[in-house]
């Protein structure tokens, strides 16, 4: 970046340095007080000093709304950008990311997140804590499962998961009532019923968490270390209508196929808090009463119909 950039153009709001071969964005950036859009696609960014230190503390830390770093060489999400509290749109498509940091939840204003074309293997449940996220792109990665907590993204309108390694989806995906687009092609989704009742007994932390939630034990953020406060916020409700339980990480898994608007049969993973619970949708291989089968089918298909334009491609 040219020295004195901010002196020449103090009112600069949009800067596009895409395709310029830059390996570093220097401290000249920090002096641009009004910068709202920074496009730096297709460069050689990715090393430790790619972004200037103190990015979040500079004036542009509050003004920056759009940041596009796609087509670079980032192997991790640069921690410096996680302090950009005003950021609405972030693209790191086509980089070399292997994971998403849980601190992504610091980007409180984020509405658009593009992470397609990386090497991501899993999604941290903390991603679900982004209150305004409406457009999430995770296509062309190596993702094997979706955390059920993602269903807490109430603003989510578009979810792109095509070309990953998903074999099933969490049943909670049906709770995303505002979801208009969902792409799932190019995943090895199971097409036959899979019975999997392996159950890892819950950890002491999980048991304590469950007790706090189900017995409504009161606590304030000042009572607990921050990581435990966050852990408790990630509780999921057991889908068994007769059970008021919650679970965190330890659960029984059952795959149930749900018809989406009569079009596609998707394998949805039901998580139950213990082997004693039964899924609201009973397994296909059991011969339960036809009444309860059709009731639970209806519940699932009503929820499925709420998803409008499902793009399964």
């Amino acid at each position, binding site marked *: 970046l040219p020295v004195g950039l901010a002196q020449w153009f103090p009112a600069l709001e949009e800067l596009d340095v895409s395709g310029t071969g830059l390996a570093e964005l220097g401290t000249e950036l920090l002096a641009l007080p009004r910068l709202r859009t920074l496009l730096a*696609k*297709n460069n050689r960014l990715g090393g430790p000093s790619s972004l200037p230190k103190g990015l979040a503390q500079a004036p542009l830390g509050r003004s920056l709304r759009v940041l596009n770093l*796609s*087509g670079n060489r980032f192997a991790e999400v640069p921690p410096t950008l996680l302090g950009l509290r005003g950021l609405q749109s972030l*693209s790191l*498509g*086509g980089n070399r990311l292997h994971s998403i940091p849980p601190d992504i939840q610091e980007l409180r204003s984020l509405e658009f997140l*593009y992470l*397609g*074309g990386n090497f991501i293997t899993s999604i941290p449940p903390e991603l679900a804590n982004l209150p305004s996220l409406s457009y999430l*792109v995770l*296509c*062309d990665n190596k993702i094997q499962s979706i955390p059920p907590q993602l269903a807490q993204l109430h603003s989510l309108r*578009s979810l*792109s998961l*095509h070309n990953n390694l998903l074999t099933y989806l969490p049943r909670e995906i049906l709770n995303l009532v505002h979801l208009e*687009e969902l*792409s799932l*092609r*190019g995943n090895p*989704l199971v*097409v036959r019923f899979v019975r999997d009742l392996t159950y890892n007994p819950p950890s002491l932390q999980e048991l304590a968490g469950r007790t706090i939630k189900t017995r409504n034990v009161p606590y304030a953020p000042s009572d607990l270390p921050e990581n435990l406060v966050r852990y408790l916020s990630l509780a999921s409700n057991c889908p068994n209508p007769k059970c008021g339980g919650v679970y965190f990480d330890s659960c029984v898994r059952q795959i149930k196929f749900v018809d989406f608007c009569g*079009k*596609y049969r998707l394998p949805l993973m039901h998580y139950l808090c213990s082997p004693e619970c039964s899924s609201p949708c009973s397994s296909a291989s059991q011969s339960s009463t036809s009444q309860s089968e059709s009731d639970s089918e209806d519940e699932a298909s009503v929820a499925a119909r709420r998803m409008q*334009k499902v*793009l*399964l*491609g």
Partner: protein
Amino acid sequence: RYTRNLVDSGNGKFNLMILCWGEGHGSSIHDHTDSHCFMKILQGNLKETLFEWPEKKGNGEMAKKSERVLRENQCAYINDSIGLHRVENISHTESAVSLHLYSPPFDSCNTFDQRTGHKHKVKMTFYSKFGERTVC
């Protein structure tokens, strides 16, 4: 998803439209309802994957015939006797724009599930017509 923007409806004999593809956007596998379909890339690149028609009962993964990446200014043609295709912008950094001519015009087609060959009729909609955003 990608948007379909009608530019000209001819004299009822054809539809001319511009499709705008964001990064990662792709279509489903679809047929062309017995019409001629021409496509020209105006900006960026689009990958076209051709598929064989599935067997009557449609059971099992659909068979890919071929795939190619169409560059700026390249043209492609397809009709139902050639096969089915999926069109995608596989770039994660660039958007793409294509010009499509369909004759005769059609507003519904079949989409196919690649894993099973099952088809489903869908109505096609326009994001805009003659420069005006269509209200859904």
